[in-house]
C-alpha cells in the first residue's frame, strides 16, 4: 500500500450497543488506511476523510433499529460531512441508522420469516462506481456474512423505481432473498454515490482464515476488503 493511501484516516463511530466497530477498524487497517475511533456523543469527527457506521444493536434496537442513534451528536456532523461529499458507509445497524437519518431512502423492518439470520451471503455488485465499490466490477458476485433480525428493506414503489432508474441499487441478494427485501435489495447509495448502506457485513470478510468459505479454501474469503480499498482509492483521486 502506498504511503498516500496509508495517510487516509477512516473514522468508525461507536454507539452504545455497537458490536462491530473493532472489526471495521481492523478492516480499515488491513486495507491500508488509518482507523480513527469516534464516539457517538462527540460531534467532532477529528478531521477524518471518511466514516464507517458499524453494525450491532445500538440502544438495543429499542423504538426501531437505529432510531435513537440517528439523533447522536456525531450523526449531525456526519450528515453535514456527507452533504459535502465525504464517503460514509453504513453496515447493518449502520445502514438502519442512515435510513432513520434520511441520508438514504427507505427503511428496514423485521425479516419476513421473523428469524435472526446468520449466513454467508452472495451479493451481486450492481453499481461499481460508488466511493465504496469502485474496486469491484459491475455484475461481480461477492460473498460476505449476513447477520440480522431487521434486514427486510422496504420503500414505496416510487422510491424503488427511482433507485433503479438512477442506478442507486448497489447490491442485490443473489440466488435467493434471505429476508423479504423489496426487489432483492441488499444495499443502496445516495444520488452522489458517497453514502452507501448495506445489511451484509464486509468487515467480517477481510482476512484469510477468518472470512467466509471461498474457492481457495475454508474461511479464505476476503471479498469485503474491496469496500475499504475502494474508499482509499476514491480519496486519493479526490
Amino acid at each position: 500500500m502506498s504511503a498516500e493511501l496509508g495517510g487516509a484516516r477512516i473514522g468508525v463511530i461507536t454507539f452504545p450497543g455497537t458490536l462491530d466497530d473493532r472489526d471495521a477498524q481492523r478492516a480499515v487497517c488491513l486495507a491500508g488506511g488509518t482507523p480513527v475511533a469516534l464516539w457517538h456523543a462527540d460531534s467532532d469527527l477529528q478531521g477524518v476523510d471518511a466514516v464507517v457506521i458499524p453494525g450491532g444493536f445500538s440502544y438495543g434496537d429499542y423504538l426501531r433499529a437505529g432510531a435513537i442513534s440517528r439523533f447522536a451528536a456525531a450523526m449531525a456532523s456526519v450528515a453535514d460531512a456527507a452533504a459535502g461529499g465525504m464517503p460514509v458507509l453504513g453496515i447493518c445497524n449502520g445502514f438502519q441508522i442512515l435510513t432513520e437519518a434520511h441520508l438514504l431512502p427507505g427503511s428496514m423492518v423485521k425479516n419476513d420469516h421473523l428469524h435472526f439470520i446468520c449466513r454467508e451471503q452472495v451479493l451481486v455488485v450492481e453499481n461499481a462506481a460508488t466511493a465504496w465499490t469502485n474496486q469491484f466490477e459491475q455484475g461481480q458476485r461477492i460473498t460476505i456474512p449476513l447477520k440480522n433480525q431487521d434486514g427486510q428493506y422496504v420503500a414505496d414503489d416510487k422510491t424503488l423505481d427511482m433507485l433503479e432508474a438512477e442506478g442507486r441499487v448497489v447490491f442485490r441478494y443473489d440466488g435467493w432473498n434471505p429476508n423479504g427485501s423489496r426487489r432483492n435489495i441488499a444495499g443502496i447509495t445516495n444520488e452522489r454515490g458517497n453514502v452507501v448502506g448495506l445489511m451484509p457485513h464486509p468487515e467480517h470478510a477481510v482476512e484469510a482464515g477468518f472470512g467466509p468459505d471461498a474457492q481457495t479454501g475454508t474461511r479464505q474469503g476476503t471479498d469485503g476488503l474491496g469496500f475499504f480499498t475502494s474508499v482509499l482509492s476514491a480519496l486519493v483521486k479526490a
Partner: protein
Amino acid sequence: MGRVVVEVMPKPEILDPQGKAVVGALPRLGFTQFVSVRQGKRFELEVEGDVTPEVLAAAQQAAETMLSNPIIEDVVAVFDAADREKACC
C-alpha cells in the same frame, strides 16, 4: 401529573411480520375467529402538571419525528389520557 398517549401502527401496505406470527399462533389456543393481526406501539408520555394544548402539540411533533418512522409507520392517535378515561366512564 398529566399523561399523553401516542399510538403508532405499521402502515397498511407494510407487511407486519410480528402480527403475522401472532395470528398464526392464536388458533393453537382456540382463537380461530381472528383472520388478521397487526401489532403497533403505544407510548405514554408524562408531564409535570396538566396536558395543555402546547404539550399535545409537542407530543404530536415528537410522535412524527422520533416515535414513528413515516416511511413504515403512521401516527394514528395522540391524546390526553385523562380525556380517554373520562370517555370510558
